Each structure stands twice: as structure tokens, then as C-alpha cells.
């Protein structure tokens, strides 16, 4: 089939092949430099004093003893950095160090720069802080019940940070058309990224007034802006170099207090200043999965047609805004991307609590509602006595369509994904047929390939690439994208190599340096392959267009017959006639001068025109289906997952072995969230994390990891580079609900919340044995006064994407 950019799939020479990553050899030999591996002469070390109470006023800080401690250079306080910042312009509610008030255990209060880490640690004990405690909030209900004292002075009211209500079509009319209506209340516990690398940063400030920060950030561009703002430096005096991230998963997207602190300390001391957080501090930095309580009310016909869905969410945001407003949207906006939903209403409330702030973690806000939706689909299938795989297939959103909430979906390969996992798992022979204790379950999902809009409003490209062609034959790719382990550096090399007909290792990749590389918005929202890939294609095609006329003239071959492949440029019809790529570069440089090009990418305009329609649109959506097999011990409640089959519609693999790595990693993280991972806190008084350590925060080891059988579905999307869509986040989404559905198949109980720990399974089994409902999960959904909906007629009802004044339909 003909792909985008004129490339025919069978002609691809690099794309789609399992090439080694450009950084693989450095990583297996220990040569890759992560932030904490950087050492500079005269470097100072920083430690941060953190709040020991969850909520309170700072009455007094005495730093005199710390300041006179030998080896201490500077003690920094909140008043030294008065300008607030935050990941989103709508919630800039953080300061690098607390000013007057602490909002959570672990809030930064003071920072020390000293000759070494030990001295800095000793000096922390010499800072005296006097607090006045304020009542602390540790739950969603607590936040709703406790309007005063407010954790922040902004937001909707009390401790409600954000409320959103959207209605696409008249849902009441939709429910009236339904044969059945069911409502399920579900809960998805918070979890953290637990990247192996502890956050680390090194700052240096030169006598030329220029700041350089090496740091393990996923989003150097956004950090660049925050640093300039808080430090009151012109942006062109700030350079952020994102070091290779030792894992990100969304946990290194926010601008962090410690990054600003070491920068300020470098400015004050004129010396390089380093910080590396302890693992405990990383737990309190968090920005991970929001705990979300959900109510999903769905009306459906006897054939399974979904006539209406009313989906409500409450997010426990923790102590700060961060990306939370976006997270709030994501707990609902992608629900309509998998199945046809005729009318959809979505209400969301995010509250502040005195806990570590939540934010973007793999799947950003969408694993929670997917869990709610997909376990409900299983229940609907049972009500209708339709096989749950069949039910899903019957009601798929068509390719090239608009969802009820105005998202434009291109290719949609979910049906093929379902077919593969159903066939591979022998679903039909197993579902409802396995012996008690063994079960099988299915779930599906869709995810975005890059956010359609940037975090701050602007009309500039989301991704830029520069190419330099050297006489040696080396091509250098400059791009602001950040390698977090997903292979983004390699993707650039593969794509440029494909277009120019050279080998990926003929390319040097320079990335994530705000002084040297054109802006890329960052490694979030599964945007990098699509956006940098398209920018790289444009830059490489332009380079090709510089070479083509020169070579064509020299060889006397028409330009359209020239092929770039195998490090040569030659006549497609007479391959003998040609020259090496290096000769072509020499020829072009002789004629045109130094060779370089640029390319950039901006996502298409979003079809929705209502307020808030900018969250959810994406150039392309990936799709995934998963079947999980479980073994449940009814005596202990222990759930073992031996195997998961997963089919993922990736559009086009740029590198299949890396794509499978992303999918297997997603299954792993989904397994952890399904069965064991949880950020939980002790009581209301101190709201201290129960287990901020690798040992006690349970995550799957080699012993718990399941077998994974992966099917790659290549349904090329015209918006993706060579048709590619994402693979890093979407495949996690169906895993927890597939496991929950399999548990029901195994032992007949519904566990409507994650993590599905043995105690919950046992409680449900015992309740069922007593003749009660065989279920574990929340039963009460809180009340919150909501504003009027933003009402948008659906595309099917002839809407134009704009919100309208509500016309009452039903009396």
C-alpha cells in the first residue's frame, strides 16, 4: 500500500527494520552520562530541608547555625525565589521553596549548598523551623468536606481546584432511547513512576551571565521557560541540557523545585552546583497517577449500541496544580475514541489534598476511565449475553470519523487487534469455560499520538529539526527531543537514514539542548515519534532536494529517476549509473556552499471549536486490545497473571523491536498498577507516605512479570511519519481492566478498583459465599455542585463543533 510521503512500504530500507539503537552500545558499556554522573571542578552539593508536617504556616526559620557550619556556602529560603511557576500557565501555584506555608509532607522549605553532600546533610539539622499546624486533608471526600482552610487561594472554591462539565448531544434523550441503563462506581488508586534514576541536576553560571542546567527532564523546553521566569533571566541566557533520562514515564515532565534551586545557587556562588534526590524525596516529588473515583452511567440497547454515557470523575490532585488541569480533562475526553457513543456527558472535579502532587504518568489520566469503561463493558456483555469480544467489535468507532466529542480519528485498527488476541488466546475455547480459579478477560483502549496543542498558547511548530550534511558523509540531526529510554534519538536517525538512503550509524544525533537544538516540546503525550519524525522527514526531503538537481545534471539522469539507497544516489532504471552519497554531498557543497536544512511539524487544526476542545485532539490515535489469563487462589486471594496477549495498532513500526519493547514495558506497568502499585498515606494527621521506598512500594519483579504475546497491527495513518502511531502509552491502558475481567471469569467476583490486592479478592469471594454481592469497590459517589454544562451538538446531529445555548429537549 502507498504510505504517506510517497513511500511505498515494500521499498522501506531502514524503517520497519530492527536496527540497533544509536545509544545502545553506550548504554551497555556504562558510558552514557546521566545527570548524576557529571562532576565538575569546585562543584558544590545541595540538600533540601523539607516540611515535616502536611499543612501549616511557617512561623519562623532560623538558619544562623546552619550558615556558620563549616563547609556551608549558602542557605537559600523561599523569599529568595518569590516568583511562582508551574507546568501549566493556568496553575502556576508552586515556589521552589515554601513561602510562609507548607502544603504537604516533603514540601521544600530551605536549601543548602555546601562543599559536599555530607556537610549539606549535617547542616539541614541545624535549621530551626517553627510551624503552626493547619488541618490536613488526605482524601477526595475530605477536600469536599473541608472548604477551610484552603490549601491554595485560587481554584473554584474551597479546596476544589477545577470543575468541568461537557455535554455532547442530549444525554437524557440518549438514556431515554436505551433498553438498559447501568451505573458503576469504580476507583483507580494513585501510583508513581518509580523511574530507576533518582532526579538529579547540575547547574553552572558563567561570568558571561549565562546559566547552564544539566538535568534529567523530559521537557527541556518548558523547563527553559520556567527557569527564565523564576530566575528573572532573559531566555537567551538560559541553557537547559536534558541528560539521558534514567526512565521518565511522565515523572520528569514538570519543572521541579530542585532544578530551580541549584540554578539559583550556581548564580549566587559562581560555582557548579549539583543535587541528587534520595529515593524518598523522589516519592514526594511524585507527579504520578491521580487517584480517581468514577461513576460511569451507560445506556445501551439490546444489541449493545451505546445510546448515552454519563461519566463523572473526582481526582485527588495532591498539593499542587502541576499538569492537573490537563489530567482532569483526560479522565474523560478519550472515552469516545474506541466505541460509538451516541451522546456523551463528562463531568470532572479535581480537588487539592495535602499529599504529593499528582500529574502525568504513562497514559496521563486515561488508564483510570479506561478501567471504568472496560470493566463496565464486560458487565454489559454479560447482561446482554453477548461475548464481550464480539460486543466490542460490533460497536467500534469507524476509521476516519469524528467522535461524539469532536476528535478526528484517522486509522482505527482495533478490530484487527481484537481478532488477533481472540485467536491467539483461544478465547472462544476458554471464556466462561475454564475451571474455577482460572479465568480469561478482554479489554481495549485508544490513545493519542501527541497532544494537538502545546502547553502554552502559540502558533509555532511543535517540533523542529535541523540537518547538517558534512563532507565526510556524516549527517548530523539536531532536534530538541529528549531520550528517556523510548528510543527517540534512534527514531531521528532511522527516519533521516531512510529518506537519504544511508545507514542510521552514518548519522550523529544531537538532541535536547536548548542552545543547540531547535525546539521540540518534549517527551510527553506520545508525541515524539510522530512530531519529530515528520519534522525529520521534511528536513531530510529538503536535503535530498538540494542534492537531486546537482546529481541529476552530473549523471544526466532525470531527477525523478534518482534513488537514494545503500549509501548511493543512482538511476532507478539503471542502478549501475550513480555515485556514492559522499560524492553527491561533495558535488552539492561545491555548487551550493555549506549544506543544511530545517524541517518542522505542527499538528492539524482541531475540529472542536468549544472552550476546552484543545485537550484530546491528536494527529492520530493508536489502538490496543489485550486478553489476560489469570489464576486466582480462592483461599488466599492471590492473583497470578501467567500470560497476556496484546494486539497494538501502531500504524507503522519505525523499529519493531523497539515498539515491542514499549508494548512489553506497558504491559508490565499495567500489571503493576492492576495488582500491587499504590501511593498510600498514613491517616489524616500526618499524611505521611506509607512506604516511600523501593522495597515496600510493590512493583513487579522478574518473578511477577507475565509472558507477553505481542501482535503488531500496521494500519498506516496519513498523519504519521511513514504512517506511524504511538506505542509507549496506549498499550498499558487495557491491561488492568483485562485482568479485572479475567478475575471475574475465574472466581465470579467483580473487583471494581485497583490495585486488586489479595485482601480485596478474598473479601469479595467471602461476601459472595454469604449470598451477598460478590464485589469489592466503592459504593458511594460524592456530591459536588457543578456549573452548567458546555453543551456541544454532536457531529452526527449536524453540529459545527461550537458550543451552543442549551435547548431543552425533554420536558
Amino acid at each position: 500500500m502507498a504510505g504517506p510521503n510517497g513511500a511505498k512500504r515494500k521499498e522501506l530500507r531502514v524503517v520497519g527494520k530492527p536496527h540497533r539503537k544509536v545509544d545502545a552500545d553506550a548504554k551497555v558499556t556504562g558510558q552514557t552520562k546521566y545527570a548524576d554522573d557529571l562532576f565538575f571542578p569546585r562543584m558544590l552539593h545541595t540538600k533540601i530541608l523539607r516540611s515535616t508536617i502536611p499543612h501549616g504556616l511557617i512561623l519562623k526559620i532560623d538558619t544562623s547555625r546552619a550558615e556558620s557550619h563549616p563547609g556551608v556556602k549558602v542557605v537559600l529560603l523561599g523569599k529568595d525565589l518569590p516568583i511562582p511557576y508551574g507546568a501549566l500557565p493556568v496553575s502556576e501555584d508552586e515556589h521552589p521553596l515554601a513561602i510562609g506555608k507548607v502544603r504537604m509532607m516533603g514540601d521544600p522549605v530551605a536549601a543548602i549548598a555546601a562543599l559536599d553532600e555530607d556537610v549539606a546533610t549535617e547542616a539541614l539539622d541545624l535549621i530551626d523551623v517553627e510551624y503552626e499546624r493547619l488541618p490536613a486533608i488526605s482524601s477526595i471526600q475530605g477536600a469536599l468536606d473541608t472548604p477551610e482552610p484552603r490549601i491554595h487561594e485560587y481554584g473554584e472554591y474551597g479546596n476544589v481546584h477545577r470543575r468541568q462539565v461537557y455535554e455532547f448531544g442530549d444525554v437524557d434523550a440518549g438514556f431515554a432511547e436505551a433498553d438498559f441503563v447501568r451505573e458503576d462506581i469504580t476507583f483507580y488508586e494513585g501510583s508513581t513512576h518509580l523511574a530507576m534514576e533518582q532526579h538529579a541536576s547540575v547547574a553552572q553560571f558563567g561570568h558571561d551571565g549565562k546559566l547552564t542546567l544539566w538535568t534529567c527532564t523530559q521537557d527541556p523546553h518548558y523547563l527553559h521557560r520556567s527557569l527564565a521566569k523564576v530566575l528573572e533571566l532573559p531566555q537567551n541566557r538560559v541553557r537547559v541540557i536534558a541528560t539521558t533520562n534514567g526512565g521518565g514515564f511522565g515523572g520528569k515532565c514538570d519543572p521541579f523545585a530542585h532544578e530551580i534551586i541549584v540554578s539559583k545557587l550556581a548564580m549566587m556562588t559562581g560555582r557548579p552546583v549539583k543535587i541528587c534526590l534520595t529515593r524518598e524525596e523522589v516519592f514526594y516529588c511524585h507527579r504520578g497517577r491521580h487517584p480517581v473515583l468514577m461513576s460511569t452511567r451507560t445506556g445501551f440497547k439490546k444489541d449493545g449500541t451505546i445510546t448515552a454515557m454519563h461519566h463523572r470523575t473526582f481526582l485527588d490532585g495532591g498539593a499542587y496544580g502541576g499538569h492537573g488541569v490537563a489530567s482532569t480533562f483526560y479522565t474523560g475526553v478519550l472515552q469516545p475514541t474506541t466505541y460509538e457513543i451516541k451522546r456523551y456527558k463528562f463531568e470532572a472535579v479535581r480537588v487539592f489534598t495535602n499529599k504529593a502532587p499528582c500529574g502525568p504518568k504513562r497514559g496521563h489520566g486515561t488508564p483510570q476511565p479506561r478501567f471504568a469503561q472496560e470493566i463496565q463493558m464486560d458487565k454489559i456483555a454479560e447482561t446482554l449475553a453477548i461475548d464481550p469480544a464480539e460486543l466490542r467489535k460490533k460497536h467500534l468507532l469507524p476509521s476516519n470519523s469524528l467522535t461524539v466529542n469532536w476528535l478526528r480519528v484517522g486509522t482505527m485498527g482495533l478490530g484487527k487487534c481484537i481478532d488477533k488476541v481472540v485467536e491467539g488466546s483461544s478465547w472462544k475455547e476458554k471464556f466462561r469455560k475454564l475451571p474455577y480459579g482460572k479465568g480469561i478477560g478482554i479489554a481495549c483502549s485508544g490513545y493519542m499520538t501527541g497532544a494537538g496543542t502545546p502547553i502554552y498558547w502559540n502558533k509555532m511548530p511543535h517540533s523542529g529539526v535541523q540537518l547538517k550534511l558534512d563532507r565526510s558523509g556524516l549527517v548530523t540531526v539536531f532536534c530538541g527531543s529528549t531520550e528517556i529510554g523510548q528510543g527517540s534519538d534512534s527514531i531521528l536517525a532511522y527516519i533521516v537514514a531512510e529518506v537519504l538512503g544511508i545507514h542510521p550509524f552514518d548519522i550523529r544525533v544531537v538532541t535536547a539542548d536548548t542552545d543547540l537544538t531547535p525546539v521540540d516540546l518534549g517527551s510527553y503525550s506520545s508525541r515524539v515519534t510522530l512530531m519529530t519524525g515528520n519534522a525529520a522527514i521534511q528536513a531530510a526531503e529538503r536535503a535530498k532536494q538540494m542534492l537531486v538537481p546537482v546529481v541529476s545534471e552530473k549523471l544526466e539522469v532525470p531527477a525523478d529517476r534518482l534513488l537514494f539507497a545503500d549509501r548511493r544516489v543512482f538511476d532507478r532504471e539503471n542502478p549501475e549509473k550513480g555515485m556514492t552519497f559522499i560524492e553527491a554531498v561533495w558535488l552539492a557543497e561545491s555548487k551550493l556552499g555549506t549544506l543544511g536544512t530545517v524541517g518542522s511539524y505542527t499538528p492539524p487544526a482541531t475540529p472542536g471549536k468549544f472552550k476546552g476542545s484543545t485537550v484530546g485532539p491528536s494527529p492520530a490515535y493508536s489502538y490496543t486490545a489485550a486478553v489476560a489469563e489469570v489464576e486466582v487462589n480462592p483461599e488466599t486471594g492471590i492473583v497470578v497473571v501467567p500470560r497476556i496477549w496484546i494486539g497494538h495498532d501502531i500504524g507503522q513500526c519505525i523499529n519493531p523491536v523497539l515498539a515491542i519493547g514499549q508494548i512489553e514495558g506497558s504491559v508490565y506497568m499495567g500489571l503493576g498498577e492492576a495488582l500491587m502499585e499504590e501511593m498510600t498515606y498514613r491517616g489524616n494527621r500526618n499524611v505521611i507516605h506509607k512506604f516511600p521506598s523501593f522495597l515496600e512500594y510493590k512493583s513487579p519483579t522478574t518473578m511477577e512479570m507475565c509472558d507477553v504475546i505481542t501482535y503488531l497491527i500496521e494500519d498506516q495513518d496519513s498523519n504519521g511519519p511513514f504512517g506511524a502511531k504511538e506505542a509507549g502509552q496506549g498499550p498499558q491502558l487495557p491491561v488492568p481492566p483485562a485482568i479485572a475481567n479475567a478475575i471475574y471469569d475465574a472466581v465470579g467476583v467483580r473487583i471494581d478498583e485497583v490495585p486488586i490486592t489479595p485482601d480485596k479478592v478474598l473479601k469479595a469471594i467471602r461476601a459472595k459465599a454469604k449470598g451477598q454481592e460478590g464485589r469489592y469497590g466503592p459504593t458511594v459517589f460524592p456530591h459536588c455542585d457543578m456549573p452548567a454544562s458546555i453543551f456541544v451538538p454532536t457531529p452526527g446531529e449536524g453540529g459545527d463543533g461550537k458550543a451552543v445555548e442549551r435547548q431543552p429537549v425533554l420536558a
Partner: protein
Amino acid sequence: MEPTRKKSQGKLAKAHISLRVNGEPVEVAFAPHKTLLEVLREDLALTGTKHGCELGECGCCAVLLDGRPVLSCLALGVAAEGHEVTTVEGMADGAKLHPLQEAFAELGAAQCGYCTPGLLLTARVLLEETPLPSREQIKEALAGNICRCTGYIKIFEAVELAAARMAGKPTEPSNESIYGRP
């Protein structure tokens, strides 16, 4: 010597030890309370050894002490006196990668790469003791090394690939591990 520290009175005399690191004799002086991890990274500039918790919980900092895997964050530097330490920097044979390193690179078993050094060294000991381990034996041997990126599958496959090659069987990765199931 009791390595107690007097606060604000400067440091205790440095410990001075001789050991072998990656096959070469090394002498190094450092504050006596430092862990082997800190000595390797800060005093010998061998930053290939990583840390994820500094509490012995994650496996990132595994190195070999006389050929046995140890968590360098839990070992004192002074305990390495007279011993042989192997770090990831010492795994390759000159310019030639160890078969485990080759296999990890080939299969994308190093994503972010942060847990990779500890895993490679631990797997190396496994293959020395059990040249052709079963999947279960690999899982058990690597159970103390947490990896958050890969889901371990590519790591298992890489260890199996390296084991086969080290046993003299020229082996390529299976089609399924590279392209998925058809």
C-alpha cells in the same frame, strides 16, 4: 579504627586501600564511611555503576566482588581492600563487547539503560555458573534487579541469546521477539 565523625571538626583521616578494579591494580583514598558505590563513582570516576535507592532495594548498583554480585551501596569501600571488583566498564574484552552486552544492545533490552549495568553483571555470574539457564533460572537470578522500562522480557531473551552464543551456537534472535507474533 572506629569511623566516627566529629561534626564541624573536619574529616577523619582518609582510608587508603589497594584493590583490583576491572583487572587492574588501583590505590585509592577516601573518607572511610564511603560505600563501595561512592568510591567507584566519585573517587575512581567509574560512573557506569548506578544507584536507584542507596538502600539495597533496587539492584542498580550491583558489581562483582571477587566474581560474586554484591550491592555496592551496601558495601563499605574499605571492605574492598585486597579484593577484585568488576564493574560494567570491565565487561567488554577491549573493543569487543561481552556477548551479554551484544545481546542487550541487539534486542533493545536496555531502554533507559539505568538498570542495565547491574543486570549485565548479575547475568554474567548466572551464565558462568549455569551456562544454559532455563527461563525460570534467569528470572530467579535477576529477581533482585528492578527494571521499570522493559517488563524484563527483552532482558530474558537477551540472556538466552547470549547464553546460546557463549555455548558456541551461532544464534539469531527469534522472529517473534523482533517482529511479534504474526
